[in-house]
């Protein structure tokens, strides 16, 4: 230091040196970097600094309600709870310098649920609760951070996502709104004896498109909509004085008041209906129309689905793809979760596939044999994103090999046409040839069963790879019962074969989550993908593989990863807390992946799953790291369970 520098430095510090130094330290981290200086100074002046040697407990569940807000100044703190499967404890999270805890317990005025331990020699700043409460009242950034922290870190990200996605929408609505919070209009209803013309008059006067027919106790018996009226008149049912009960749709579809707008939208899309009754304890509470939903969401999901189902040409279907992209954009903006979005994409893709099949049959003529269109992989799991290729096959019933070959000959031209048409609609042809037009994937149920049995009995690397695709299967078009029989046979086969289960575990463990031992990301070292990691293969696949394996081994039939995790929790195969953590982590990675796709699509770039973690902000990085750690935990639990 030169003399002048030394003089320049001296005398600058009006604030006490140590307060100033600690403030400078905190300013490197959120939320402190957003706090006003005076508030930050208040925080530091009311702190104490405490040392914890490696292994020391900092706070424990039986300490009672948390009395301090902790900030790690130096070192590392880990959260520990009793291990689910063996004695001892396992680390559930890590808190590094500049990070704080235990927000949820502090705000909730309760004890912590996880023991916080010093993972190495650690200094923490402790702010007592009284000072924290005062600061909480005056500092907006701290309050935001704390409240968001309570409902998990992921909500913070969701907030960011919603802000980032098309801001002009500015809507406050969410697909998660409960139906009873939608201020449903008083339902228009009538008795079953009311003449049709009277009922229509009532509908006209009340400006509604539907009327619910109820008994004296308000139990819904049926629904009558303007569409029913159109159909009645078209069919020549012109007697408008007959009782409405003759023309109503019986047992109308209904949802409970605690279902969400999303549930309603999905039901309408799936069932091709425009009205959903809201029923509580058997009694009619309200009616939700497609129009209500549209004005609520500005997301015209139901309309889009209908347009797809009525498209007359492949080119129309292809054009609708861009609307699906826009829909996803809007849904991200409305705060839909990655699960909801993948679900919707899958649903719309299903509609597209069905329509393509119907159009192909119209064009080439009915092959004259019933067949089922199967899909595999992410489509089978209902986890499709916009970046998707075809994984499909055909199943039919045949008595013997000769008949199977004959039917195959008839179906293959149709299947190949469908594959080409799907490609024209934006479903990339599968590079591995997993497509119905391939004779090896156009099989009778017996042939499929034999093929799957081969996978289970002889675990070659090729077969194991096949399992990760084919075993997530679902019928999209045609009779579904054959597919269910196939699945049951498969599950029975796997449950008996522990050797196969073990080789599936080994296979599932080959893809390691990209976090290193020193708490940072492991990225590719060279090539075009240098400095990036693969969100799908490295991030999602461990969850997908782990959930599939456990589900198949325990007779769980569903294919969706999150659904599998939930059922595994319900069957007590994995612990509830673990299941919730896996689910959160999986959703976060998926969400990050979809945001990237949308972003790339908007810029006209090719969509990829590769991400440079250095492009993320501090918060996203931290959550992504935690999410990968959950994948590590899932893999560790598999290793333990199968004693590998």
């Amino acid at each position, binding site marked *: *230091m030169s003399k002048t520098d030394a003089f320049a430095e001296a005398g600058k510090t009006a604030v006490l040196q*140590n307060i100033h130094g600690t403030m400078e330290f905190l300013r490197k981290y959120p939320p402190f970097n957003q706090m006003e200086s005076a508030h930050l100074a208040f925080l530091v002046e009311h702190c104490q600094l405490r040392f914890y040697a490696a292994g020391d407990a900092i706070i424990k569940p039986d300490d009672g309600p948390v009395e301090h807000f902790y900030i790690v100044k130096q070192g590392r703190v880990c959260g520990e709870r009793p291990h689910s499967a063996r004695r001892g404890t396992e680390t559930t999270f890590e808190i590094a310098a500049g990070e704080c805890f235990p927000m949820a317990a502090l705000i909730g005025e309760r004890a912590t649920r996880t023991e916080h331990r010093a993972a190495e020699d650690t200094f923490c700043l402790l702010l007592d609760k009284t000072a924290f409460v005062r600061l909480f009242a005056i500092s907006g950034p701290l309050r935001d951070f704390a409240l968001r922290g309570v409902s998990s870190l992921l909500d913070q990200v969701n907030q960011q996502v919603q802000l980032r996605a098309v801001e002009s929408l500015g809507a406050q609505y969410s697909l998660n709104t409960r139906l009873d919070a939608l201020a449903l209009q008083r339902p228009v209803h009538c008795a079953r004896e009311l003449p049709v013309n009277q009922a229509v008059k009532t509908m006209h006067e009340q400006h509604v498109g539907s009327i619910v027919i109820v008994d004296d106790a308000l139990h819904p018996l049926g629904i009558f909509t303007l569409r029913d009226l159109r159909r009645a008149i078209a069919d020549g049912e012109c007697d408008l004085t007959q009782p409405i009960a003759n023309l109503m749709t019986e047992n109308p579809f209904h949802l409970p008041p605690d279902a969400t707008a999303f549930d309603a939208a999905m039901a309408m899309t799936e069932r091709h209906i425009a009205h959903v009754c809201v029923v509580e304890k058997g009694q009619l509470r309200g009616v939700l129309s497609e129009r209500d939903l549209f004005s609520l969401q500005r997301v015209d999901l139901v309309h889009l689905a209908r347009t797809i189902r009525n498209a007359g040409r492949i080119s129309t279907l292809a054009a609708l793809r861009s609307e699906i992209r826009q829909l996803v954009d809007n849904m991200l903006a409305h705060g839909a979760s990655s699960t909801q979005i993948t679900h919707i994409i899958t649903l719309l893709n299903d509609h597209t596939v069905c329509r393509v099949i119907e159009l192909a049959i119209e064009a080439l003529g009915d092959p004259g044999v019933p067949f089922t269109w199967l899909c595999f992989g992410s489509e089978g799991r209902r986890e499709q994103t916009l970046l998707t290729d075809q994984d499909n096959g055909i199943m039919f019933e045949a008595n013997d090999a000769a008949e199977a070959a004959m039917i195959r000959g008839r179906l293959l031209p149709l299947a190949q046409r469908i594959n080409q048409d799907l490609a024209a609609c934006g479903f990339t042809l599968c590079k591995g040839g997993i497509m119905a037009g391939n004779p090896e994937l156009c099989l009778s149920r017996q042939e499929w069963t034999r093929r799957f049995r081969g996978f289970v009995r002889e675990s070659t690397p090729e077969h194991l790879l096949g399992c990760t695709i084919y075993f997530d299967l679902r019928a999209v078009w045609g009779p579904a019962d054959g597919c269910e029989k196939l699945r049951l046979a498969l599950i029975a086969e796997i449950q008996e074969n522990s050797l196969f289960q073990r080789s599936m575990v080994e296979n599932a463990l080959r893809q390691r989550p990209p976090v290193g031992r020193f708490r940072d990301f492991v990225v590719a070292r060279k090539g075009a993908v240098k400095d990036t990691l693969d969100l799908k293969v490295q991030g999602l696949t461990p969850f997908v593989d782990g959930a599939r394996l456990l589900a198949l081994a325990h007779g769980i039939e569903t294919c969706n990863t999150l659904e599998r995790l939930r059922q595994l929790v319900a069957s007590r195969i994995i612990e509830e807390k673990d299941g919730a953590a896996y689910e959160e982590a999986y959703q976060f990675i998926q969400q990050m992946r979809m945001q990237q796709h949308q972003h790339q699509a908007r810029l006209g770039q090719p969509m990829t799953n590769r991400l440079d973690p250095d492009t993320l902000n501090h918060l996203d990085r931290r959550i992504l790291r935690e999410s990968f750690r959950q994948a590590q935990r899932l893999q560790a639990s598999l290793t333990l369970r199968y004693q590998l």
Partner: protein
Amino acid sequence: MNWPWLKTRGTPLTPRQLERRGQLPGAPALEDRPLAEERLVVLDLETSGLNMRRDVVLSIGAVVIERGAIDFAQQFERTLNRPGQKVGPSVLIHGIAPSELETGSEPAEALLDFMAFVGDSPLLAFHAEFDRRMLRRALRHSLDYRLRHPFLDVAQLAPMLCPDVRPGKGTLDDWARHFRLQVSQRHHASADAMVTAEIALILFSRARRQGADSLTSLARRLETWRRRERGGLI
């Protein structure tokens, strides 16, 4: 003893200052209670040089360890008014400009404030003997007050409680680096006091594990340790 040159240097105290001096609590004795129940003052002095007879205290920084933690609400930081200090080489170390010294507090006031801050707490410092003697001389000179507070030397506690390591020459910097501590501004009395206190917290944690969880037992062990060290040297 009658050293006129000492008396003539000090400015006479005002009645208020005399009253305050009279209210200062007496020196404490080391107690046998757990360290977590102690209030300890960790101090660091910046001086005009290293000569304990000639050089003077320029600034005082101190933090408090109470109930086992450093309490940010209790901090002492004062530059003393020392007019006419030459810009010597030590200015480059402590970094206190002559102009700053001229705007500093009147020494008697600063020292009264400091001793009120200390109260009857034992003192901790790195190379405590130097700070003890410098402070004692300043108190005697400015306040005619006799410092009797016990001092514990962190520079001795550290090697005694961590016998396996000998970081560098055992300076404050060496130990701070060994424990990977951040010093916000080295050679600033407050920042040095803070890092000394942080080292002390680590050492107390070690001491507890070694069964020496009170100032008396630490002092006892230090005495043995010093004897052995001296013996080792001879």
